[in-house]
């Protein structure tokens, strides 16, 4: 039985909070395994969620994957796991195997997509997905569907014209949309100060006449709460919300990047002190909801899941080269 308490005005379902923690740890460990496989030469590319799990899990768990849609970006491993993509599926995509549900091995890793799980396929040019999410939301509004759409992006992407065009469009038409900016302070090497002349991305909301909310990404509960409010507003037909989660990424931009050229190690260590996983675990422990034994059990289970996903994907077949020309145009699925 889930225990219910009241925490800063929010009714808390402890089982849900443990689920939150599980997904944070799972995505972290899966991510770490990917780096290992990359450095072993088994995978040519990794792009990480590490450091942003709190923001991602907070948003995703406040949504309803049965009716809502998401357009994630390449850092959203934790988001897609919560939305139902399995670790095996993630690894199949990572190793570019035939049964990769995102693209059958066609796209780079972390370009998630899963129709059945309401994850819209994404590309590499940033910010296109925000317009897509507005389109998904437009359909929901026009057809009276019950869900909302959420789009995820980094703060660098807010410089793109499509960010502006999408928010403007969604605001004018009061679309059920949440735009989540995972602000980790860097667009690859470019710090936020060279990206925009404002401190908060959320300040941009006023230019569209919509709410802009700043939350601490290392606090999944705060993110969860803000998302719940935004989702309810969207469902009431009051239009979109811009949520800015302040986060940090612990890895370089990707396995092709070397962040030592643009971030100091001191800065990284300071930021790591606010690791969402550590902070959240400590909090659960102070709330007497978590202990070392539970932690060890969880880590063992996660390790098993990650090993299983790795082995499964490593042994899975590659796509057949004869399928190169498939799916350029429509063909009825077998």
């Amino acid at each position, binding site marked *: 039985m889930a225990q219910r308490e009241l925490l800063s005005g929010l009714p808390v379902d402890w089982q849900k909070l443990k689920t939150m923690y599980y997904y944070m740890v799972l995505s972290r460990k899966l991510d770490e395994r990917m780096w290992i496989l990359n450095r072993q030469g088994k995978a040519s590319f990794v792009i990480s969620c590490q450091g942003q799990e709190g923001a991602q899990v907070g948003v995703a768990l406040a949504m309803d994957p049965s009716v809502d849609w998401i357009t994630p970006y390449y850092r959203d491993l934790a988001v897609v796991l919560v939305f139902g993509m399995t670790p095996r599926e993630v690894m199949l995509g990572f190793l570019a195997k035939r049964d990769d549900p995102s693209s059958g091995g066609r796209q780079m890793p972390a370009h998630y997509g899963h129709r059945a799980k309401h994850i819209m396929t994404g590309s590499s040019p940033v910010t296109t997905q925000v317009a897509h999410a507005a389109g998904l939301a437009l359909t929901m509004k026009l057809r009276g569907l019950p869900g909302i759409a959420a789009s995820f992006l980094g703060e660098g992407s807010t*410089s793109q*014209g499509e*960010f502006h065009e999408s928010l403007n469009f969604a605001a*004018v038409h009061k679309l059920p949309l949440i735009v989540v900016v995972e602000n980790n302070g860097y667009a690859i090497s470019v710090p936020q*100060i060279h*990206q*925009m*002349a404002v401190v908060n991305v959320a*300040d941009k909301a006023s230019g569209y006449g*919509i709410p802009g909310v700043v939350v601490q990404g290392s606090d999944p509960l705060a993110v969860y709460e803000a998302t719940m409010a935004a989702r309810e507003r969207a469902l009431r037909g009051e239009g979109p919300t811009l949520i800015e989660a302040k986060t940090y990424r612990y890895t370089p931009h990707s396995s092709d990047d070397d962040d030592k050229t643009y971030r100091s190690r001191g800065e990284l260590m300071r930021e790591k002190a606010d690791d969402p996983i550590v902070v959240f675990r400590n909090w659960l422990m102070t709330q007497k909801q978590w202990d070392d034994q539970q932690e060890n059990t969880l880590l063992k289970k996660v390790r098993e899941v990650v090993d299983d996903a790795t082995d499964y994907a490593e042994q899975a077949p590659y796509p057949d080269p004869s399928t190169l020309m498939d799916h350029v145009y429509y063909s009825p699925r077998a």
Partner: protein
Amino acid sequence: MAKVKLTPELLKEIYYYMALSRALDDRMWILNRQGRAPVVYSANGHEATQVGAAMALNRGEDWIVPYYRDLAMVIAYGETPREVMLHLLGRADDPNSGGRQMPAHWGLKRRHIMTTGSVVATQDVHAAGLALASKVLKDGRVSLASFGEGSTSQGEFHEALNFASVHKLPVIFLNENNGYAISVPARKQMAIMDVAARAQGYGIPGVIVDGNDPIKVYEVTQEAAERARRGEGPTLIEAKTYRFVPHSSDDDDRAYRSREEVAEWKKRDPVITFEKRLIDEKVMTQDELKAMQQRIKDEVNDATDFAEKAPLPDPSTLGRYVYAE
């Protein structure tokens, strides 16, 4: 640049350009309805905004990147009535494009008027680029892009403001908000009342000004230019105004605007109210006014005759200026 005092001469000059623009505009419509000019885009109603802004700049030195409605701005900036008419009629000597572009696609290098295309909001980024060069070259110039409120929905508007604010570029973004993007009213264009509110998202000043009052536009533009020259970055100015005519000679605005609304705005016609003000405040006498109006009429007649007699481009020049020559 020290603040220029609003001398009677300056006020008269402002009026002169506003009235000249209106007269040219009227003539262009006549030529269109006579079948002599294929299409007309008007400044009609926007004259105060355009002339006020132009006069506040270092004309011919600072860059302007106008849009198709900026007839009054470009003539205040030094494009002559003859040149305007050569452009309208697609003549060989049209200095804007040699008869290549549609009318109202301004561009006059001699006066630092940047060439413009038809796709809206591209000019916002160009103005930021001109200002980037000024910042690097330290040439003391300011750039001004003008645009309608409809084009603020374009991504390039956002990219330009963001870029310019990050790099504190000497640029002024002048929005001539007339409430309609062709037929689409502003409320269907944006979920906010004022374009100026967007400035907050870029950490720059957003100023709202009465676009039918050339003096107020002059003052805020001058302030924005000074801020830009001090290296403090861009300003977004929103001039609230109205166009009295359809979007173009191909448009019929009765489909989307009530005649009452148009009549209501016409009570505040900037040319008429400013003329009255100059007389009331004794800047000009009735005789002076009449003389100026006669001069304008003569200039418009001369420009029309000149352009109609001017040669059309030689078809053999079709392939020229694809690359540098």
